[in-house]
């Protein structure tokens, strides 16, 4: 057999021309993008005119003003407390909801679909909107933010906990079923223990996420350092704003570092 016989067509073309439908889709996508650029009023001109303003602001940020550092640190601690309590509260509520949201362990298909819908709803509504809602419900302050973060956590953990439980090895579950254990017994004896590493991983990731989220909740009066930043900006105290931004940065980095350290512990522990 000759070489030509094996590859009669030689090299393939570098680019295959798209089909008619694909071509039309590309054109449509491009049109949507152009329309979107138009509607955000993007203009190179505006950006260039804004540059001196940005430079001016950056210049005023240095040196950062440390005079309000004690208040800022207090607000920072409040922010982290919101994240921590919101995550913890959310985690406690996620587990039962996640169990109801698994096909295998839900008591009824209706409960399964309702739980999944609730979790999806919690996840898809942005946390800032939850914060606005809770500010109205429980008043201004960190409690509103904490509740918003708890809801956010349920939306996130509910989904991943449920997925982890669905994917857990079926063997131990079958063994518990075979010896007459109740559904709850199977879940807590065979499924949850096997999922612990995955749960911890998700929980740590959630804490990182809520820490970042907790920073901005202050903008709508739901507690935390966000309000400090907004006031500093509104009063053109850019040097104070710089201090706040650096503090936020350090908090977020510290939480991420801590979380990845703990995560390694979990992996090492199996």
């Amino acid at each position, binding site marked *: 057999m000759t070489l030509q016989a094996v590859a009669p067509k030689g090299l393939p073309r570098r680019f295959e021309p798209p089909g008619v439908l694909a071509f039309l889709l590309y054109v449509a996508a491009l049109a949507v993008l152009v329309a979107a650029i138009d509607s955000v009023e993007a203009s190179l001109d505006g950006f260039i005119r804004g540059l001196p303003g940005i430079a001016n602001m950056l210049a005023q940020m240095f040196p950062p003003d440390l005079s309000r550092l004690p208040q800022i640190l207090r607000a920072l601690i409040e922010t982290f407390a919101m994240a921590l309590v919101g995550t913890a509260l959310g985690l406690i509520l996620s587990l039962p909801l996640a169990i109801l949201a698994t096909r295998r362990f839900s008591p009824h298909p209706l409960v399964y679909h309702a739980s999944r819908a609730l979790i999806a709803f919690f996840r898809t509504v942005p946390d800032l909107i939850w914060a606005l809602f809770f500010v109205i419900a429980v008043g201004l302050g960190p409690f509103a933010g904490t509740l918003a973060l708890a809801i956010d956590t349920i939306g996130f953990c509910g989904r991943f906990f449920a997925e982890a439980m669905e994917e857990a090895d079926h063997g131990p579950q079958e063994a518990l079923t075979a010896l007459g254990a109740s559904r709850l017994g199977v879940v807590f004896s*065979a499924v949850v223990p096997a999922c612990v590493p995955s749960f911890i991983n998700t929980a740590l990731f959630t804490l990182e996420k809520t820490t970042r989220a907790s920073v901005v909740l202050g903008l709508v009066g739901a507690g935390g350092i966000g309000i400090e930043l907004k006031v500093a900006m509104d009063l053109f105290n850019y040097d104070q704003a710089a201090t706040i931004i650096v503090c936020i940065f350090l908090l977020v980095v510290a939480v991420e570092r801590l979380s990845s350290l703990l995560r390694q512990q979990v992996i090492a522990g199996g």
Partner: protein
Amino acid sequence: MTSLALREHEAAATAVAAVAVESAAVAAEPGPRDISVRRLAKNFGERRILDRIGFDVLRGQAVALIGANGAGKSTLLRCCLRLIEPDEGSITLLGEKAETLNRRALRRLRARVGFVFQRHNLVPRLSALTNVVHGAQARASGPAYWFHSVAPRRVREEALHCLAQVGLADFAAQRVDTLSGGQSQRVAIARALMQRPALVLADEPVASLDPSAGEEVMQLFVDLLKREKLTFLYTSHNLRHATHYADRVLGLREGRLVIDAPAAQADSVALRAIYDR
């Protein structure tokens, strides 16, 4: 096919027929039956996996169910506890008609039947003692039986006693995912003992172990059950395990029961014939 092979095949077929005749005698034997299966059938999609299976297991008997891979052994055992729902036929276990039971009654029946799987199916990350304590969920439910640390004292002591019976008392606190295959399977046996079962089913309990560990675990398992005079139905693809440890041998071939004979009379030609394709 050579004429020699053909002759051997014929001989095997005759032997199978002879053994099948003997099965009538076994069925007629007097005494209480712990397992009665009648016209059991199961399809997966279009495929018939079990085809009108019928047999009895007398109280206190040890019965081996042999068959090639895919013959339907695991499916048959699972159907007994309705871990897989049979399509047709009836199964009576310990005097209960399994197919008529509601959820709760089915749980009560399962509680009285120990089941040891080919893969030990222990819960990883938990201690040997906790895995054995789980066996107590056969008679009681609630968080107290989820972890040994919160279990009542008498339950923990009983679990330790079960572990001691399989020679693993010293490993009570050890995580099961750090145990060897043989040790894991022994913990699974201890978990079944913890149920205080009246009947034990086992699906190739030593197939995943190396031969010497397999021999050791099988011997221990059978000795424990004999001592308690427990009825035992197990599957195996090891012919020696079947004839050596069982009182009776059932042979499954392509979903049909083709052998039902006292172990002493089941000759190896007939047994080997069920592996022919």
